[in-house]
C-alpha cells in the first residue's frame, strides 16, 4: 500500500495553493489504491500554513519549524526530506511542479537513490504499482511511463489534480526533530527581489490577464493589462516577446520557459500564440483572445475571440466590467 509524503510549499509562511493539488494527487492515489499520506512543511514561523494543511485528511502534518530552514535552500531542505522520507517509510514523495519542488526534490531523490518523474498529469494504480502520464517536448507529447523502485519521487502539474475534499476532523500535527548543526551549509541565502504587491501570483490566480507584443511600453502594459487584471481581481502575465524587449520582468512570463498557469479565465491581450506561450496556458478552463490579426494562432485555442485593437478594446472592456 502506498505511503505518500507530500512536500508543502509556502511563500514566507503563506501556503501556496499548488500544495493542495499535490495533496489532491495523494488523496486520489489513496482512494484508488489504499494507503495514507502525510504532509511535510519546512520553514520558520509556519504554524498558520501548517494549520491550513490539517483540514484535508492527511494522516499527519509533519512540521519542521527551524530558523535554519527559514529560506528554501536546496541542500538543507533535501537533507530534511531525505530523513523524513526514511523515517516515514515513504513509497512516493510528491510536490507541485514549481521552481521550489524542481530545485529541491531531485536532490532529495538522489540522496535516497530514488528515480523521479517530473510534470505528472495523470496516475493510474496497476498491480501494486503505478502508471503515470507526463508532458514532454514543451507540452507537445504526452508520455505514459512506469518508474521502477520501492521509492519514487514526483512533481505533479497543479492544473491536473483538484484539491482534496475537506475532511471532518483535523490531521494531527507532528513536529519533526532536525539537528540544525548537522544541516549542510553550502548554499547561503542573500535576498529576493521584492514582488509587486497587491496582485496574486499567476500560478495561483483564478483569472490571469496576459499581454503580448501589441503593448508598446511598460506604462501601457501597466495601464491596460494591470488595469484589467485589477478590475477582475486577477494576476498579470506576459509573453516572452515583452520580456525580451524589457517591457515586463522575467517573473511575469507565461510559457514553457516561464510559468505554467491554469486559471479559470485567461485573457490573452495582443498575444499571437507561439507554441512556446501556449504550452504555458492551454490547460486554462476558458481562454479569451483579443488580437488585431484575425489569423493569429491564439484564436485556434481561444474559447472566445475578439478581433480588434487592444488599445481600444481593453479600456472599453474595463469600463464595461466596472459598471
Amino acid at each position: 500500500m502506498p505511503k505518500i509524503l507530500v512536500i508543502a510549499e509556502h511563500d514566507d509562511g503563506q501556503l501556496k495553493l499548488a500544495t493542495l493539488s499535490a495533496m489532491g494527487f495523494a488523496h486520489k492515489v489513496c482512494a484508488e489504491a489504499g494507503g495514507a499520506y502525510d504532509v511535510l512543511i519546512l520553514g520558520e514561523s509556519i504554524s498558520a500554513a501548517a494549520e491550513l494543511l490539517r483540514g484535508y485528511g492527511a494522516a499527519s502534518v509533519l512540521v519542521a519549524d527551524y530558523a535554519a530552514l527559514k529560506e528554501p535552500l536546496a541542500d538543507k531542505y533535501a537533507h530534511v526530506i531525505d530523513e523524513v522520507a526514511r523515517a516515514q517509510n515513504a513509497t512516493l514523495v510528491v510536490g507541485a511542479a514549481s521552481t521550489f519542488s524542481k530545485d529541491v526534490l531531485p536532490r532529495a531523490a538522489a540522496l535516497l537513490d530514488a528515480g523521479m518523474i517530473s510534470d505528472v498529469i495523470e496516475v493510474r494504480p496497476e498491480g501494486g504499482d503505478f502508471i503515470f502520464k507526463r508532458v514532454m517536448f514543451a507540452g507537445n507529447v504526452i508520455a505514459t511511463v512506469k518508474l521502477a523502485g520501492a521509492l519514487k519521487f514526483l512533481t505533479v502539474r497543479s492544473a491536473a489534480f483538484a484539491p482534496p475534499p475537506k475532511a471532518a476532523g483535523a490531521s494531527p500535527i507532528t513536529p519533526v526533530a532536525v539537528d540544525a548543526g548537522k544541516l549542510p551549509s553550502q548554499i547561503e541565502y542573500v535576498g529576493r527581489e521584492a514582488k509587486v504587491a497587491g496582485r496574486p501570483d499567476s500560478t495561483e490566480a483564478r483569472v490571469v490577464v496576459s499581454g503580448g507584443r501589441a503593448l508598446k511600453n511598460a506604462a501601457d502594459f501597466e495601464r491596460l493589462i494591470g488595469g484589467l487584471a485589477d478590475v477582475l481581481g486577477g494576476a498579470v502575465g506576459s509573453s516572452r516577446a515583452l520580456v525580451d524587449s524589457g517591457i515586463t520582468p522575467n517573473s511575469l512570463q507565461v510559457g514553457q520557459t516561464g510559468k505554467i498557469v491554469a486559471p479559470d479565465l485567461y485573457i490573452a491581450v495582443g498575444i499571437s500564440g507561439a507554441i512556446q506561450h501556449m504550452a504555458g496556458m492551454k490547460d486554462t478552463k476558458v481562454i479569451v483572445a483579443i488580437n488585431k490579426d484575425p489569423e493569429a494562432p491564439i484564436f485556434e485555442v481561444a474559447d472566445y475571440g475578439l478581433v480588434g485593437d487592444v488599445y481600444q478594446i481593453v479600456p472599453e472592456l474595463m469600463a464595461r466590467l466596472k459598471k
Partner: protein
Amino acid sequence: MKILVPLKRVPDPDTKIRLKPDGASVDWDGVKFAINPFDAIALEEALRIEESQGEIDIVVVSIGGEECIEQLRAGLAMGADRALLIRSETDLDPLAIARIFVAIYHREKPGFVLMGKQAIDDDSNQVGQMLAALLGLGQATFVSRLELLDHNRRARCGRETDAGIETVTVKLPAIITTDLRLNEPRYVSLPGIMKAKKKPLEEIAVADLGVKVTSRTRVLSLEPPPRRKAGVRVKTVDELVDKLKNEAKVI
C-alpha cells in the same frame, strides 16, 4: 580552473515534433538536431568567464551515440577547449545520467559544473540537482545572473523562481544550472569551425568509467496532447462580457 559543461543533443527547438503511427516513438525523419539551448547558454557563460579571467579550461561532454559528435564539434567551434563523448547506446533516465556525470566529475575534477536547467526534449529538470546530491556539493538552479567571488571559491547566483529572482551564494565546486536569460549564446564562426577540427575529442565507453547504470524509467507509449476545440468569435465587448457572465460563468 576547469569548467565542465555537459551538452545534450536534442531536436532543434524550432522543429515540430511528430509521433510515428505506432504511438510509441517520435518520428525523427528529417528532424534537425542542436545543442540543448540551455546547455548552449551554459557554454556561452563558461566562454565569457574564460574571456574575463583567462586560464580557463572548458571541457564539454555528451552522453550518447556517435551522432553526438556533431554537437560536441559545435561546442568546440563555439570555443570549448576539449570534448568528451561517453558512448552509450541505451536510453538513460536522469538519475542514470547523473551517475555517469559523477564518474566524469571525479575524472576531470573541474572547478564547477555549468549546465542547462533542463533538456528541451525530456523536460525533466533533474540531472543537475541529482548530480549535486550524489557529489555532496552545493547547487544553484535556474541561474540568470552569475558572478564568481573570492578567486573562484564562491559564486553569487541570481535564480529565477516563481516568486521572482532570488540571490544565493554557493561554495565552489558546485553544480550551477542555467536559465534562459543568463546570456545569448554566440554564433559559431568559420575560423571557430576550422579550429574545432584540431581540438581533442575523446571517446570513452560507459563501462570504462567503472559505472553500472540502468534506467528505472520505462516509456510505455507516447501520444499527442488533446486538442482544444476552437471557440467562437464575438463581435463586441458587450457580447464578450455577456458570454463570460452567462455562458462560461467565469466572471
